[in-house]
């Protein structure tokens, strides 16, 4: 259990006054990163700093304070024909958090991470100055802060270039892949699809290893821009530990695969397409009191098949079923020092937490990093400093930039401590 002092922030003056009083800790949005990146002895709660500064309806440029949630943002932009250029798998994150994690979405293979659409950031550095940074201005701070997990300063505002849409519906195509080989081929064949992602049955073995359902999407032209508001269901309390055990997961996976109709095309509202889990609030409670760990890695293209096969065999052998398992082809990496994606394939898994899981994940870390891959910081809760340094070779440049802008020793989290970034 981490207990923290939470300071609600409603204006940049609020951040400045905390810094003047010797704040040491991390800024936090909606706290949806899976690991310890938003945990510290003191946190600046930015969710109250959620105003829009300006919205150019004609050009599709919106300038917001960092604490605005993607859900709120969508409710403003979608009715006027705009969409997020990149969106992660939940709307319940803040824009500031999304930039600090340099999130990617189902369109990464074509469009890259969210930072590619950030026109400029305003960052408050440790001394209370607000610096405007972009690819060209204070570019070192920009590249350190996009994906920098809030360790360089407080992202105060973001100017984001949006994507024009004609409808809030998605034309979704579902394809079945009986094993990993076929899944890889489907991703390769459908590189031109705007959105692609695969749900993968990580307990399938033998010839069926890597059995998946690939989903492709394109923005529809019809259907209109009227938002639908559906009630959210909520998990009221922690379920008993072991509810999501391997036999439940195996049966669910089997049904899910059988239920998918190969080649089916249908028009779906954007929310279930991009945010299937948002429908059930507090879904983490399904894992019971001890919770779960999320693990996402990416490996370069040439090693991807070998690594995925190895990883899936080990998970399947260990009988540590992951309920949610998402496979995705990723496009080229970017210039940000700690940004996650690189050209290849990424796999995200979540595991009900048990102590026996930790050695398994350590083994997976080694396999991934040996093949030039990385583990996603927004989901990491346990990677070692040694693995981090191998996975993110630009960590030294990142540390230097933090030093230069006075962030070291001021902005730090449980994660930065663990990863050896705080000296």
């Amino acid at each position, binding site marked *: 259990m981490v207990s923290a002092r*939470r300071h609600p922030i409603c204006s940049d003056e609020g951040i400045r006054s905390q810094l003047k009083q010797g704040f040491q800790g991390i800024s936090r949005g909606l706290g949806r990163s899976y690991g310890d990146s938003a945990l510290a002895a003191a946190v600046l709660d930015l969710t109250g700093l959620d*105003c829009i500064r300006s*919205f150019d309806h004609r050009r599709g440029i919106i300038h917001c304070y960092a604490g605005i949630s993607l859900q709120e943002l969508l409710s403003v932009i979608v009715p006027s024909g705009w969409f997020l250029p990149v969106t992660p798998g939940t709307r319940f994150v803040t824009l500031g958090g999304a930039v600090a994690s340099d999130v990617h979405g189902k369109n990464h293979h074509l469009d890259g991470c969210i930072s590619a659409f950030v026109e400029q950031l305003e960052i408050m550095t440790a001394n209370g100055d607000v610096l405007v940074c972009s690819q060209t201005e204070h570019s070192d701070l920009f590249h350190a802060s996009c994906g920098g997990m809030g360790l360089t300063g407080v992202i105060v505002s973001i100017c984001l270039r949006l994507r024009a849409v004609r409808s809030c519906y998605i034309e979704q195509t579902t394809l079945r892949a009986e094993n990993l080989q076929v899944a890889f081929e489907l991703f390769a064949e459908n590189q031109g699809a705007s959105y692609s992602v695969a749900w993968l049955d990580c307990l399938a073995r033998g010839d069926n290893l890597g059995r998946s359902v690939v989903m492709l999407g394109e923005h529809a032209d019809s259907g209109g821009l009227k938002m639908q508001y559906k009630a959210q269901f909520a998990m009221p309390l922690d379920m008993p530990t072991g509810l999501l055990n391997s036999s439940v997961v195996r049966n669910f996976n089997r049904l899910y695969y059988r239920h998918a109709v190969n080649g089916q095309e249908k028009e779906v509202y954007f929310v279930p397409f991009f945010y299937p889990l948002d429908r059930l609030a507090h879904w983490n409670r399904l894992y019971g009191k001890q919770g779960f760990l999320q693990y996402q890695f990416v490996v370069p293209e040439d090693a991807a098949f070998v690594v995925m096969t190895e990883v899936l065999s080990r998970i399947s052998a260990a009988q540590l079923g992951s309920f949610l398992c998402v496979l995705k082809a990723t496009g080229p990496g970017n210039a940000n020092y700690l940004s996650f994606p690189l050209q290849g394939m990424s796999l995200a898994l979540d595991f009900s937490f048990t102590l026996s899981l930790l050695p398994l994940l350590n083994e997976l870390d080694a396999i991934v990093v040996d093949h030039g891959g990385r583990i996603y910081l927004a989901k990491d809760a346990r990677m070692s400093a040694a693995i981090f340094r191998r996975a993110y070779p630009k960590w030294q440049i990142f540390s230097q930039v933090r030093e230069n802008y006075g962030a070291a020793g001021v902005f730090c989290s449980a994660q930065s401590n663990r990863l050896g970034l705080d000296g």
Partner: protein
Amino acid sequence: MSNVLIIGATSAIAIAFARQCASRKDRLFLVARNATRLQMLVDDLQARGAVAIASQLLDVSRLDRHVEVLSAAVKFLKILDVVLIAHGSLPDQQVCETNPSALQQALQINGNATINLLALVANRLQSQHCGALLVISSVAGDRGRASNYVYGAAKAAVSTFASGLRNRLYRDNVRVITVKPGFVDTPMTVSFDKGLLWAQPETIARGMQRAIDRRRNVVYLPAFWRWIMWLIRAVPESIFKRLSL
């Protein structure tokens, strides 16, 4: 499209309410104390589609300025369709127990200032023979508890005053709506541990709009608080005084 006046506009519930108004393309007049935050909100509402916005700074404890601010609002909006009085501060109960000036200040902001504004706005609405006047009271005003009876006493005064106004203005087609939120997750309540009973400001704001549309008088938000408070009021004083709630 309505003309909406919001006092205490940068409070979390008022912000959520104002955003609903903006997305419906209402005309807004905002009153708040902090200039920076007020300007941030004005920009935000403009970006969300508010047709016209004006604002004025006011520290509500300055009762002598109320008339002037209200006239500015009337000048801009002409007709007041909806008025929301939302300002407030949660005083430190323990400090108020020993420090008379803190006590006075808490009563001034949460009680006197609100009542003075209610009185002035009521007269204006009466003269235009229409309008909805919402005032944010609190479940804390339903019964005094050791942990926050200063705030509770001020809110009780507000609830009673609003009830009287509702009675007086009924024939003038003016609706007075007393809003009694339960626990709301806002900057005002940051130091509390949040459990199942806590609601988001957006939920409260939606409930307020529903209360206007359905011509309600006293609304508990979320609605289950009506039953909780019914129970709390039902406990005999001889027992209640022994409880620590």
